[in-house]
């Protein structure tokens, strides 16, 4: 393919001329490529078979761990939720939990239920996002459009609850920012009913579509033992037969009191991963219903911790009574947190998120370490993709629901 000029050492701007192994065809998929997202996969092909895949990530590395170290304790919350903007409550909740562990503070039960409600709304939206992207990766544009259209329903629900479509900044240490508006329970029940009906239509056009089933079954198989060795998380892990979910393993918030199941599949292929997502949406809808029912019947408790609420000045209490909205006292901005090391984890839509927060007693965190589900799933590209054909790459990529900004932080 290379002409004589290139081999003779000619340089073309933007290109690199180097020798590669004989018989191996090296292609660079991304970052500007319809099948790559915000990353690059360097794929080496032997014929049509991938012999080596090297994920080159870091195209969206926005240095959140470093920036968290120079901001006051509350400010990393909006910062960190930008890494998974489509799953904003789930991604910041463990950080808040870690702060609460350091401060020995417990949120009020009502706040816990509100957090869980928003987390599950986000989980449904996040799964729909993943399924839409997956659909378009294997050429099914209708799935993309349907999933993104129905995702708007849940974004609207989140907007009614928090005031923002995507970046809610909802949980704060000791509680949440706002109480639930009056009309939310009705909206949520309608959304749940609608989504249950739509899932049936998804099954008809996508999950049971003969072309899709043929395309996905037996592709990207990760066995149970291999999944454990690679340390992958979330729906990908549960599709391989490992029954692990942080909501069950180490229940945080009020997940221990709620009634839900963890769907587990044994096949470990791309189709099973899709099915796990569909089933998890169903479970999340159940949780939304339970949370809304509880919130409707238990009114009156403040949405922040009792000791914080008592300290609020009179004006702020009036605002809370009138609008259900918590106004911060300025002292929050420069609050100090006792020295110590804390670890917190939570279950995002894509899997387990892990926070390590260390305080030296100052006004900013000493160290915030965050390991996101996508960062742990990235290893799949290196160890599972080789051996498949090139056309399987988008199927595997879409089925593990990899979201580069989350992985790169």
């Amino acid at each position, binding site marked *: 393919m290379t002409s004589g000029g290139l081999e003779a050492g000619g340089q073309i701007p933007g290109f690199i001329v180097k020798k590669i192994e004989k018989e191996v065809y090296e292609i660079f998929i991304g970052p500007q490529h319809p099948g790559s997202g915000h990353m690059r996969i360097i794929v080496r092909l032997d014929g049509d078979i991938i012999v080596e895949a090297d994920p080159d990530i870091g195209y969206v590395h926005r240095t959140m761990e470093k920036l968290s170290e120079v901001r006051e304790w509350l400010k990393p919350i909006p910062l960190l939720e930008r890494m998974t903007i489509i799953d904003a409550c789930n991604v910041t909740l463990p950080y808040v939990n870690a702060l609460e562990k350091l401060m020995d503070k417990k949120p009020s039960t009502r706040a816990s239920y509100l957090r869980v409600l928003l987390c599950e709304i986000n989980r449904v939206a996040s799964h729909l996002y993943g399924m839409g992207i997956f659909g378009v990766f294997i050429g099914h544009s209708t799935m993309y459009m349907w999933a993104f259209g129905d995702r708007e329903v849940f974004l609207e629900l989140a907007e009614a609850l928090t005031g923002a479509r995507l970046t809610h900044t909802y949980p704060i240490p000791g509680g949440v920012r706002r109480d639930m508006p009056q009309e939310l329970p009705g909206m949520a029940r309608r959304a749940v009913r609608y989504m249950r009906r739509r899932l049936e239509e998804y099954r008809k056009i996508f999950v049971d579509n003969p072309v899709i089933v043929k395309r996905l079954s037996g592709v990207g198989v990760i066995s149970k033992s291999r999944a454990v060795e690679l340390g992958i998380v979330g729906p990908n892990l549960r599709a391989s037969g490992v029954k692990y979910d942080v909501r069950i393993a180490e229940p945080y918030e009020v997940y221990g009191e709620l009634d839900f199941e963890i769907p587990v599949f044994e096949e470990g292929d791309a189709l099973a991963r899709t099915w796990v997502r569909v089933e998890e949406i169903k479970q999340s809808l159940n949780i939304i219903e339970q949370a809304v029912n509880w919130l409707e019947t238990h009114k009156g408790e403040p949405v922040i911790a009792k000791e914080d609420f008592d300290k609020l000045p009179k004006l702020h209490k009036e605002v809370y009574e009138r609008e259900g909205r918590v106004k911060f006292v300025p002292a929050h901005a420069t609050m100090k947190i006792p020295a110590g090391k804390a670890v917190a984890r939570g279950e995002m839509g894509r899997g387990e998120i892990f926070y390590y927060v260390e305080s030296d007693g100052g006004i900013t965190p000493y160290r915030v*370490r965050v390991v996101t589900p996508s960062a742990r799933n990235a290893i799949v590209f290196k160890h599972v993709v080789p051996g498949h054909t090139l056309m399987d790459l988008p199927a595997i990529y879409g089925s593990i629901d990899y979201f580069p900004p989350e992985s790169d932080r």
Partner: protein
Amino acid sequence: MNSERIVEEVKNVLGGLAREIAWRKGYLEVLVEATNIIEAAGKLKSMGLDHVKSVTAVDYPKESKIRVTYHASSYSREDLMGFIVGLSVDLPRDNPEMPSLVSVWDGSVEFQEREVYEFFGVTFKGHPDLRPLLLIRELAEKRVLRKDFVVKEESIYEGVPFKYD
């Protein structure tokens, strides 16, 4: 399984390897020497801690050390799922070097050790593919997550030196 039992079990498994075992908020920290970390990790893995959630490094310029912690947990043992054990090792700050644990924990630490390498400059001996993961070469050489790399901050504290000596 409660928290006392797990401390007991870790103590039994590690024997004399552990220099210090203490509960932090949310995890059990086990401090070992860099020379026998592979042995300790192998023992923890045989106990059922089969994957690593996070390879966390923290820079302590005052004590001139970098602490690398492997936060391990279990997928296969249901009673261990709720606990996290942090296997820590202290490395000198000027030439941090330790054996890679890819041979023990395989894929779950492979990319995260690359991250620690590029952010802190910790060299993992025996790592199959040690090169920067997220950063470009120029930044990786600056060891950006160490405390002596300071980013500018415009805030109400502007002008106040923000420094960890």
